[in-house]
């Protein structure tokens, strides 16, 4: 056995020139080959790459998609995020457990199946959903489960299952992203200008980043371009891990040419020769088509050497597959991961535009931002700046899920009110709208007049709708659970704080909290928000902080004060072991 994998690991590593920078790819290949990557394989790999074992283990152990123990032949990852559970994921989960005779986290005795939970996989509009052997299954019902299992047992391919169908659900096409593009038009326009002029055009459009922070794109490119360095990199952030976001999936499926065109233009503008698309591991099934589009663009002279016949412009794109870690969407963590390391955020400054990928100036842009950039070079910054609002020009792709008639992706003009949006998607009796995912804001009906925009309610694209009958605080609790799971563990306020928050929240939801617990909850939330090192921790308390005032009644209902006695303390339970161990009969009788 040992010798057998030694040889293969050596081959895999040499395929990547034994370069540690490709550790992600190497690990993916090893897991594809053996189904897991054991401690022994890690040591072996470290040997081959001439790295300390701990460094390799540190990296491997970080990612959900690099199991360190053998899993079953079929790995079922059922999404159990908030929206899924609203749509019956728990029942589907029970059906899987029943059909397989195992619980989540376990593997069947015959090693055929492993059952796991996973956070949002970008299919919230067709929940309940799962990835089986990386292939997405959607709109699952408990009744589907026995058949799925028996067909897999019979050796049928997952992709042949009737549930292995991802709907596009593109419900509203706008004029920026969802319009046809003649490949190369925008790029040729850009190449007719100087790089500075391209940045100038973007500046005219007042385009701001779509990934969450809303940083002006022209300024980012300009910073990057002005760094004194012969090498610069362009990275497209396709990690899309924010629960309830799936618009990048739709863009990558429907408009990959537009994305790559945007990347190439950005590469030209900042002076990069290499672009990387960091694609979340959950979207591995998109890889094949994306590679095809890249090959086609190379063939058309839109990528590679001497693009569009320009002697002085070479630019190519590689796709880096992630491995199931939300924090890798944060740009500096993403860069670490793309360098083949554990996806822990870096200290800033220096910012990625100063010292990014491999220490060189790097611009990280969201998928949608790059699409906008391409469209701007096609139609002009002036045209773009007239769409939307003053501080939020253009359109926004929204991923709408939850309690509404038409979940899916909507390209809307910036400035749309929540009210209008709810009407558009057919939502009635809405209790609350979560804008911007788990890390975003829970908006109460009194604020439904507010607008989707950077100046009012920003969102990376996630819109989750909670109907009147939902247990809103339970949903918020599940968001907090998500952050506990996804905290990278670097800094204490986030690593310990999210767990404290989760425990205190649970205590209150279980009706065991006092007014003091509520005050403590608020205090922990404030600390986590203000003391955490990166955006993950800083936003992880938002589910609490954005509901504790606007939905104060829901919290108040849970509080039962009992004269200073804490309801979390159960004396009878605490005495149980002592009574049993000493063989006393009557509980507590002296």
């Amino acid at each position: 056995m040992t010798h057998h994998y030694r040889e293969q690991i050596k081959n895999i590593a040499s395929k990547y020139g034994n370069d540690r920078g490709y550790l992600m790819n190497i690990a993916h290949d090893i897991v594809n080959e053996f189904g897991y990557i054991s401690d022994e394989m890690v040591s072996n790999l470290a040997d081959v790459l001439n790295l300390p074992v701990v460094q390799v283990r540190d990296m491997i152990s970080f990612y959900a998609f690099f199991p360190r123990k053998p899993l079953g032949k079929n790995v079922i990852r059922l999404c159990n995020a908030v929206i899924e559970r609203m749509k019956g994921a728990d029942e589907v989960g029970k059906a899987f457990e029943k059909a397989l005779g195992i619980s989540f986290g376990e593997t069947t005795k015959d090693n055929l199946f492993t059952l796991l939970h996973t956070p949002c996989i970008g299919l919230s509009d067709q929940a309940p959903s799962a990835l089986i052997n990386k292939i997405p299954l959607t709109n699952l019902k408990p009744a589907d489960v026995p058949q799925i299992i028996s067909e897999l047992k019979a050796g049928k391919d997952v992709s042949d299952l009737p549930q292995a169908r991802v709907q596009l659900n593109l419900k509203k096409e706008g004029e920026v992203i969802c319009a046809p593009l003649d490949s190369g038009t925008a790029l040729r326009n850009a190449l007719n200008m100087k790089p500075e002029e391209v940045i100038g055009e973007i500046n005219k459009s007042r385009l701001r980043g779509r990934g969450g922070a809303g940083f002006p794109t022209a300024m980012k490119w300009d910073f990057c371009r002005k760094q004194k360095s012969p090498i610069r990199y362009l990275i497209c952030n396709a990690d899309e891990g924010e629960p309830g976001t799936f618009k990048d999936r739709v863009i990558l499926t429907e408009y990959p040419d537009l994305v790559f065109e945007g990347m190439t233009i950005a590469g030209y503008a900042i002076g990069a020769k290499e672009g990387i698309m960091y694609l979340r591991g959950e979207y591995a099934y998109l890889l094949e088509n994306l590679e095809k589009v890249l090959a086609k663009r190379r063939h058309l002279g839109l990528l590679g050497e001497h693009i569009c016949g320009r002697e002085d412009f070479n630019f190519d794109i590689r796709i880096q597959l992630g491995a199931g870690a939300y924090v890798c969407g944060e740009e500096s963590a993403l860069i670490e991961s793309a360098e083949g390391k554990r996806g822990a955020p870096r200290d800033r400054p220096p910012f990625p535009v100063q010292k990014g990928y491999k220490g060189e100036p790097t611009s990280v842009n969201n998928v949608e931002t790059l699409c906008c950039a391409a469209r701007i070079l096609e139609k002009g910054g002036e045209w773009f700046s007239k769409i939307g609002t003053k501080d939020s020009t253009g359109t926004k792709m929204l991923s709408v899920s939850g309690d509404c008639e038409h979940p899916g992706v909507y390209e809307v003009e910036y400035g749309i009110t929540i009210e209008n949006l709810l009407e558009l998607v057919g939502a009635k009796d809405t209790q609350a709208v979560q804008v911007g995912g788990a890390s975003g804001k829970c908006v109460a009906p009194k604020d439904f007049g507010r607008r989707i925009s950077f100046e009012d309610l920003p969102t990376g694209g996630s819109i989750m709708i909670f109907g009147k009958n939902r247990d809103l605080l339970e949903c918020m609790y599940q968001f907090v659970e998500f952050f506990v799971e996804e905290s990278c563990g670097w800094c204490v306020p986030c690593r310990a704080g999210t767990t404290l928050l989760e425990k205190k929240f649970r205590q209150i939801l279980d009706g065991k909290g006092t007014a003091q617990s509520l005050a403590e909850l608020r205090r922990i939330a404030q600390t986590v928000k203000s003391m955490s090192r990166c955006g993950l921790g800083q936003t992880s308390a938002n589910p609490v902080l954005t509901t504790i005032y606007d939905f104060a009644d829901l919290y108040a209902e849970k509080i039962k004060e009992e004269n200073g006695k804490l309801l979390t303390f159960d004396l009878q339970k605490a005495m149980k072991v002592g009574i049993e161990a000493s063989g006393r009969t009557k509980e507590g009788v002296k």
Partner: protein
Amino acid sequence: MSKPVIATAHFTGCFGCHMSILDIDERILDLVELVEFNKSPINDIKNFTKPVDIGIIEGGISNDENAEILMEFRKHCKILVAIGACALTGGVPSMRNLVPLKECLEEAYLNGPTVKSENTGIIPNDPDIPVLLDRVYPCHEVVKIDYFLPGCPPSADTIWNALVALLKGEPLNLDYELIKYD
């Protein structure tokens, strides 16, 4: 005007915190002038005889008796102040929390090297002995505690200053030396 009433309790601690209260030396005379003592090991009053303004708690909660008396204190005292590491965190006694209670008892009474011979030991089961809890709890996990004074023990000055501030309704300013422990 009647004097403010104070009660004190000792749970699972070493009595060091109470010693520290007595360590206020001659100020004890001022204290007696200022306040009246109710239930406390200091005066050996066993039961509450009136409502209490300030309850001072030493020690963590390791058995049912501790828990019940602490709840009594909560009922009778307007303000509860936990003092010392044991009350605040469980302290030294809570080191047993690392080992399951059953194993602790078996080691102490059945299998330990100081148990005379095999099969003769028993785990004490007299109904008069309080029942040990599964772990030692800090006081704030059992009842609401209003104020915490850390230290092992908190120094006499810390306790004195805190008490005076509380009685006068003034903010508490403790010198750095009084709350520095390393």
